[in-house]
């Protein structure tokens, strides 16, 4: 079992991750990743079948910044709020200062004047690395079960 302090540190990291996505500012999101990172949002059917297509597939912090710029400046969309819930987090130390983390996630979406619904539900397959005093995501693969997306996916998961 991993060290309790490390465990708490990782839990805190994910609490911050969710707060950034749900409370903002989205501009803080790329900094939670390493410079060379892999962020993917993938329908389970592609993941299972070994098909390479992702709903979103980014390969660097720069691409994450470009996405946020796009979402904020150029991609028209209806306003909505999202709320993340994580559960069943599993921790594994793969090398010094490198940790594999998995967790179930649920994202509830609320659009103006509509009932809340499930925007995305699935599992995180992540890798965290220690970068000085802080942790960063080197890998975050969000594999979602609800392959039929309720219209569109704008903000990061």
């Amino acid at each position, binding site marked *: 079992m991993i060290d309790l302090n490390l465990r708490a540190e990782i839990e805190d990291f994910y609490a911050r991750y969710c707060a950034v996505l749900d409370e903002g500012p989205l501009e803080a999101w790329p900094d939670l990743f390493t410079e060379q990172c892999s962020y993917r949002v993938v329908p389970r059917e*592609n993941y299972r079948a070994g098909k390479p297509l992702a709903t979103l597939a980014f390969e*660097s*912090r720069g691409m994450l910044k*470009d996405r946020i710029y796009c979402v904020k400046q*150029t991609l*028209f969309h209806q306003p909505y709020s999202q709320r993340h819930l994580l559960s069943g987090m599993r921790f594994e130390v793969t090398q010094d200062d490198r940790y594999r983390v998995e967790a179930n996630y649920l994202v509830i979406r609320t659009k103006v004047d509509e009932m809340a619904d499930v925007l995305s539900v699935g599992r995180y397959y992540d890798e965290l690395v220690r970068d000085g005093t802080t942790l960063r995501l080197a890998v975050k693969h969000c594999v979602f079960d609800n392959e039929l*997306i*309720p*219209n569109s*996916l704008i903000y990061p998961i």
Partner: protein
Amino acid sequence: MMQTAVQHGLDWPVNAISRVPYALYSDPEIFRRELQRLFYGKHWSYVGLEAEVPRNGDFKTTKIGERAVILTRDLQGGINVIENHCAHRGVQFCQERLGNRKGFVCPYHQWAYDLKGNLKGLPFRKGVNGHGGMPEDFKLENHGLTKLKVAVRNGVVFASFDHSVESFEEYLGPTILKYFDRVFDGRELSVLGYSRQRIPGNWKLMQENIKDPYHPGLLHTWFVTFGLWRADQESQMVMDGHGRHACMISRRNAGGKGAVTDGVQSFKEQMTLHDARLLDIVPEAFWNGPTVVMTTIFPSIIIQQQVNSLSTRQILPCGPNSFDFVWTHFGFADDTAEMTQRRLRQANLFGPAGYVSADDGEVVELAQDGMRQHPEYQTISELGGRDIGNTDHMVTETLIRGMYGYYRKVMEL
């Protein structure tokens, strides 16, 4: 039927094709007629790619209109499309999206069908210990699954419930067929994966969206800024003889500031990428000029070639007020690893989260919202005039008018 339509305020001047009553997008009776005449009538609907069922016994489930069908490659290697409900008592017997089988057995009473849809047998047909069983005159051959007429061209499979439909080539017509063959030139295809979205809007709004060269340069800032699409670039808008199918053909230009960006609110001059790999575009031989060709084949499918990104986009209506939109991204079996990675990177631009297509889903939803609230109102699609004709520019809504010209004939509205 028209009663209801009129009830819903359908009041459509004869021959008006540039004005469409909002009721057309939500009226249940009109939708029912659309299913019968457009999706189940004398039209060809997309069902998939041969590359999705490469081996004998492979199958793929999908829909035409609201009917579940199965694309199969039978044990002789033939391509079949059969309806996915049991001839006995209606069970939609096959659930997997993709699989491989020697045949289908319905779970309820194990009626067994081959991959061509023939009923091969059923339990206790001759009775048990001399009791029961099916009547003497019961013939297996009269109780197979619904078999659709199938057309396969260069690896793409279409089907029709109406066996008297014209040939697929006649259906497309020479102009559209040429552009169809431009992408599907016979090379082996490789499927990169799927994206699916349920868009709460009428299915026709998506056909309009891809027959609308007016919006990309305005809604999709991304396109404008990087010159992937702007009103001043070389382009042609072409249709088949009926105006039901179309291609939007264009060639990207330098991008950046220019006459057509003045006062275009969505234009962002200073926009640059932190990571340019997203737009690492490399021309391909088959382009043969255009950088983008968007083909709409009425009523069910859109074929996308956007620089290095290729996909089919299938339209599956769920009632008048929403449809499922299924993206199949593909490349060619002989693609280099670099080209495959390029196609996958550019795929970020498309699909339910795409830089230049998530917003299409959003505006389609908002158009449905606006139209449902006021069925008596009408659209106005008069850019480039009120008539129908091919153009060598994109400042026109002629393709939309073309579609409604044909629609009114077939729908008798």
